[in-house]
């Protein structure tokens, strides 16, 4: 009974929220159109950023601190994922597909995906694409491979996996410190090197992002008989 009332109350609150949101949006869209200050600034500063694609410039130069922390969030998710992983055998026999056609397709498809990821990474400096898309694509390729039962020893929880998780992040971090040691601000690139450094960072990030997402996919429990190891009290 109380549960019912609670649900009704919450539902009504959501309805009210939606109405208010629509009303706020109505006010916002009625505001006069004007030149966007940030866009102007962006196009003025873009030549100094080392890349020609504005989104990449924002992500990896103007607001690179956001990106740094965002990768931190991903790393945390990956860490927690592998900290919960209890599987010793990473190849789940139930998952291995016996279909030879699928294997053949995959053998064709996986390198293609990796190539595509590389291209996205490279393209990111001048047109849509970049580290994140490339990394996600790598992860997707990995997921496909795993679903098909390809062996992936590097995903075993161990030093290699952990190093892979933080590779991009540490490259980013070290380059960020470079500027500060030089007497400039944290995350400032040395003049002239911005483009190259951004590419280095992006390459590292792609690898790590792919690995983290894949690790998260893999570390979910699969085998029903695995042990349930609880922590100590308190």
């Amino acid at each position: 009974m109380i549960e019912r009332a609670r649900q009704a109350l919450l539902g009504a609150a959501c309805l009210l929220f939606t109405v208010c949101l629509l009303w706020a949006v109505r006010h916002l869209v009625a505001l006069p159109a004007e030149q966007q200050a940030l866009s102007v600034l962006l196009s003025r500063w873009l030549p100094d950023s080392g890349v020609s694609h504005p989104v990449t410039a924002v992500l990896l130069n103007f607001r690179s601190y956001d990106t740094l922390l965002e990768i931190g969030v991903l790393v945390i998710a990956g860490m927690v994922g592998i900290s919960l992983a209890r599987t010793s055998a990473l190849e789940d026999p139930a998952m291995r597909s016996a279909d030879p056609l699928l294997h053949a397709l995959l053998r064709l498809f996986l390198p293609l995906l990796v190539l595509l990821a590389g291209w996205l990474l490279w393209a990111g400096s001048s047109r849509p694409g970049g580290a994140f898309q490339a990394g996600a694509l790598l992860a997707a390729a990995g997921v496909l491979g795993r679903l098909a039962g390809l062996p992936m020893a590097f995903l075993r929880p161990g030093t290699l996996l952990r190093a892979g998780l933080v590779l991009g992040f540490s490259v980013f971090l070290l380059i960020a410190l470079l500027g500060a040691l030089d007497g400039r601000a944290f995350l400032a690139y040395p003049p002239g090197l911005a483009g190259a450094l951004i590419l280095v960072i992006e390459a590292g990030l792609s690898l790590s992002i792919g690995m983290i997402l894949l690790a998260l996919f893999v570390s979910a429990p699969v085998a029903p008989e695995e042990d349930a190891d609880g922590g100590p009290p308190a």
Partner: protein
Amino acid sequence: MTSALLYVLAGALLCGGGLAGCLLVRHLLRRLLAFNLLGSGVFLLLVGLPAHRHGSDPVTHALVLTGIVVAVAATALALVLIRRYFHLTGRVSLPTGRQEDR
């Protein structure tokens, strides 16, 4: 720029629906789906509103990309937790009621 306005409206409705889903749905996976819908709604608003007022704004694109990464990290983490929770207890939703009295 009325097409951007359409997406803004869709974003607002998605926000409302997603929030309702997050609050009312008990099944953890469904709640996570609702959370993702809510996120998409917010991202649509974040991009759509400035697009409607001033035209395409690359800054918002960058922000949304960051937001998507954060959302996917959270989703993947939540999925791991949910699966492990199910694995240990066989439950797919959190128990309600007198959990405060434990």
